[in-house]
């Protein structure tokens, strides 16, 4: 993953987190705001109910007092105060009076608590309402909630009591309004809200006692747990009922206990607030937030991409410069301006490459000088050996001419023979150098490496077991189905031949020569191992340096030629050696060499390779040298 991509993803992640946090925050704040709004709506409705309740109560109180003050009622009280008064004549009066005063409940009750006339239960005349005759300041009590017995069953009423006193006799007027669907219908409710009334008239929860402005509430049993809790512990509470799996179908309720004059729970007002509008609004806001977030995300991504590109551009230039340097372009420079850290880094990079280039130039110069000195030393060494016999022979010839003419012919013949031999030796030396200088370009063709290896082993079989020298055992481990590669068979033959010769030289006391071919990624591998004396790490370091040799009569060009051949085929060679154990050369050859194999001349410029695992790679400029 590129630095730009990393930076982009970091920006993106940061953006996503930011958007997520903001979206979550907005959602939470919005939800809280809506819940607060709901709560205030419900509280407003509860307040409205309480005000309406109080207003209705006052109204009921006024109407009941109006009945008490009416002439007919006063006359009734006077008549009833007389001994043996006939109360039966008033048995139907409550109905008419309640109609006139628009009361749902009305009872005329005598001094002894007996019902004289009842509107809500006409047949109940004569029965007692003893609680009315208890000492009580009814005017001070005002209106109160009460459970009223009617012929249709108990009901909840907003009641008031007035008394008409004549002498020692009291006539009680108990009147009130029914609290039920009509009362709820009179409440003005905002859209999405509704008011329910549970009339706590039975010992246990009864769904039929839960009404709204149209009658009993459907699915009233869903309220049972909340109302049971309210019945056990009256108090304001809030709960929510999910009517559908969709959250929009849920409804939040605020419960307000309605208590009677003895603090007994007679009813519960439930203010329901449909969550549909809120949920839909929340959804709209969430969708809007998502859309804005998505747009922000897209814009953020684009900006992140642009920002990452802008930030990483100098870095990429630096990376490209570094890559160029790693590929050998020591003159690579980075064009980054600015006073920021990247700019400073680019300046340092440019300065570093400039210094590296100068140092490399100096190093090359020094290496060239060293190489020429080595060539000169080798040439001098090689040429000095034949020159000394030449000089001695010529001096012997001259001395023989001057001192002993008779033997001159014999000396002359011997001397010329020596001279010719040494001259031939010189020609050979020069030929070798000439051969190395004239390394041909490989002519590629299909080659089976196993065949090449077998041919070389067959060629050297006689020498492995030659008389007068310790035997060398050859072992072949050739990979079957080795792929055919594109190579120059002659050059390969020559390179491997050099390795075998080196191995033989490394095993003067005999040993085992092992040649292994393997199938490798993208090509084939060859390993030539001996059980010879081995090399020191220092020797390994210089092994492929041209004209470097560890042998008495070596030219130091053998391994250099091997490396040159391998390099020209786009392959690489490495050596592993341990003193006293042996040496192992590993060659990797690609199935198809690159089009422009490295030239032999360029290989001279890069002679240095690692020590114990010295290796040359295609295109590298390692110099060939003869083996140890």
């Amino acid at each position: 993953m590129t630095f730009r991509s990393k930076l982009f993803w970091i920006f993106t992640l940061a953006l996503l987190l930011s958007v997520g946090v903001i979206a979550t925050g907005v959602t939470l704040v919005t939800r809280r705001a809506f819940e607060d709004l709901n709560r205030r709506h419900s509280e407003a409705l509860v307040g409205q109910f309480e005000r309406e309740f109080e207003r209705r109560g006052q109204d009921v109180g006024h109407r009941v007092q109006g009945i008490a003050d009416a002439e007919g009622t006063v006359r009734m009280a006077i008549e009833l105060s007389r001994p043996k008064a006939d109360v039966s004549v008033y048995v139907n009066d409550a109905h008419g009076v309640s109609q006139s005063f628009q009361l749902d409940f009305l009872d005329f009750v005598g001094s002894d608590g007996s019902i004289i006339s009842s509107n809500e239960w006409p047949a109940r005349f004569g029965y007692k309402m003893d609680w009315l005759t208890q000492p009580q300041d009814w005017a001070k009590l005002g209106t109160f909630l009460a459970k009223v017995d009617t012929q249709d069953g108990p009901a909840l009423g907003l009641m008031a009591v007035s008394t008409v006193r004549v002498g020692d006799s009291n006539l009680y007027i108990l009147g009130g309004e029914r609290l039920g669907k009509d009362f709820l219908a009179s409440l003005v409710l905002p859209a999405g809200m509704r008011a329910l009334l549970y009339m706590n008239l039975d010992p246990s929860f009864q769904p039929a006692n839960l009404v709204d402005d149209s009658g009993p509430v459907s699915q009233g049993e869903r309220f049972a747990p909340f109302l049971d809790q309210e019945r056990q512990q009256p108090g304001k509470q809030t709960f929510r009922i999910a009517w559908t799996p969709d959250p929009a179908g849920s409804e939040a309720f605020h419960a307000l206990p309605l208590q009677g004059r003895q603090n007994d729970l007679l009813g519960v007002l439930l203010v329901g607030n449909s969550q549909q509008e809120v949920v839909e609004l929340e959804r709209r806001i969430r969708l809007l937030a998502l859309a804005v977030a998505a747009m922000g995300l897209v814009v953020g991504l684009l900006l992140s991409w642009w920002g990452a590109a802008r930030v990483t551009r100098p870095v990429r230039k630096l990376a490209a410069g570094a890559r160029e340097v790693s590929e050998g372009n020591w003159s690579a420079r980075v064009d980054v301006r600015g006073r920021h850290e990247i700019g400073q880094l680019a300046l340092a990079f440019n300065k570093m490459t400039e210094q590296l280039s100068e140092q490399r130039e100096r190093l090359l110069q020094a290496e060239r000088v060293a190489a020429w000195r080595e060539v000169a030393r080798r040439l001098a060494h090689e040429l000095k050996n034949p020159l000394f016999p030449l000089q001695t022979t010529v001096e012997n010839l001259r001395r023989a001419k001057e001192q002993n003419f008779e033997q001159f012919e014999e000396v002359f013949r011997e001397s010329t023979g020596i001279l010719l031999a040494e001259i031939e030796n010189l020609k050979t030396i020069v030929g070798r150098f000439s051969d190395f200088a004239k390394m041909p370009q490989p002519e590629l063709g299909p080659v089976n490496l196993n065949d090449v290896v077998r041919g070389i082993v067959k060629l050297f079989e006689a020498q492995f077991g030659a008389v007068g020298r310790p035997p060398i055992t050859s072992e072949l481990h050739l990979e079957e189905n080795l792929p055919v590669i594109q190579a120059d068979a002659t050059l390969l033959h020559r390179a491997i031949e050099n390795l075998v010769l080196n191995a033989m030289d490394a095993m003067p006391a005999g040993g085992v020569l092992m040649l292994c071919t393997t199938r490798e990624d993208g090509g084939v591998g060859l390993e030539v191992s001996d059980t010879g004396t081995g090399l020191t790490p220092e020797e390994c370091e210089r092994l492929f340096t041209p004209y470097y040799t560890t042998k008495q009569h070596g030219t130091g060009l053998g391994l250099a030629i091997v490396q040159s051949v391998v390099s020209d085929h786009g392959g690489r060679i490495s050596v592993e050696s341990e003193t006293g154990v042996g040496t192992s050369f590993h060659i990797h050859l690609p199935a198809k060499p690159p089009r422009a194999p490295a030239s032999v001349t360029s290989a001279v410029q890069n002679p240095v390779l690692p020590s114990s695992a010295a290796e040359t790679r295609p295109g590298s400029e390692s110099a060939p040298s003869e083996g140890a």
Partner: protein
Amino acid sequence: MKLRSFLLLAAISIALVHPGRVETARRPRYGGTLRVEIGAVVNSLDPVVAAANPEESAAKDQIGALLYDHRNPDGTFAGVAGSGAFRIAAWEPGKHVTLAASENNRGARAFVDSVEIQMGRQARDRLLDLEVGNTDFAQIPAEQARSASEHGVRVSASDPDELVAVVFVAGRPIAEDAHAREALARSIDRAAMVNFILQKEGQPAGGLLPQWSSGTAFLFSTAADAAGAKQLWSQISGSPAIVLGYDSGDSLEQTVAERIAVNARDAGISITAESVTSPGSAAPNCDARLMRVRMPSPHPREALVNVVAMLGPTAALDVAPLPAGVSSDQVFARERAIVGSYRVIPLVWLPQVYGLSARVRDWNAPAPGESWPFADVWLEQESQ
């Protein structure tokens, strides 16, 4: 002679001044139209055509009694229409009929020239018309007699001759439980019904015959016994409930049923009062029914036979027929047996109550089985 004549006149005068009556003894006057309003709707005056309901049948019988001279032994009218005190002068089926006084009546000519009968008038309308003087005669509910009287309407009531009773429907499980029947019978406060619901226009009924007819009604208890009822009801296993049906078109029955429910619940009896749309028939879900039975005759035996005939099919009263000529003791024994079974619970006796205008004179409420004596009444000359 003068003294004898004076004493005779004085005796006649005293006889004419009936206690409690407002009219004074005057010489009857011929002429005038008696305006009558009834609640029933009579669609045919032909005796052969059957009435649609008991109310129409009763009204048709009353009108027929004015048109025909006498009846056959089976109660049907004999002779032709017009042979009686009146003849039909105008007839609009279902709305009104005008009867003109027949000059050829075998007996004396009716005092009034005609009788106009408006049909299908509701009780409230009849009362209002009586109050404002738009009618001379109308039958009014007994429970409204007191109110009507307080509003200036002349009220005439017969002896109580209509029994209101709870009749258990045979075959219903709760109706077959003697404890349940007796518990309900003991829980009912009849006196309160008479005093409050009937406004004292009636009598508590303990037996199946009124005191004025049998003379033994006082032997049947009418007092409520809530404690006894409660004890009896507690002996019933399970948690039974009684459904008491009443005629949905009868406000008196509704009020009585609701009062019974109040009394019964006070005694711990589970009971509900339900209206029944088909009068006289037992609704499928009713365990008991409120029923009204009017005496066809002032004679105890005939009255008891009629009660058994009317209530027997519902209550499945297992009683042997009462032959003619049985003694009053036998009638009482039979009555006590029926009442003692508690399959029929007598509640109250109702009188027939009539409202009269101020100009109606010589009106006497008919006894059970008798017709309205319109031929005998006369109308006071209205002051100009």
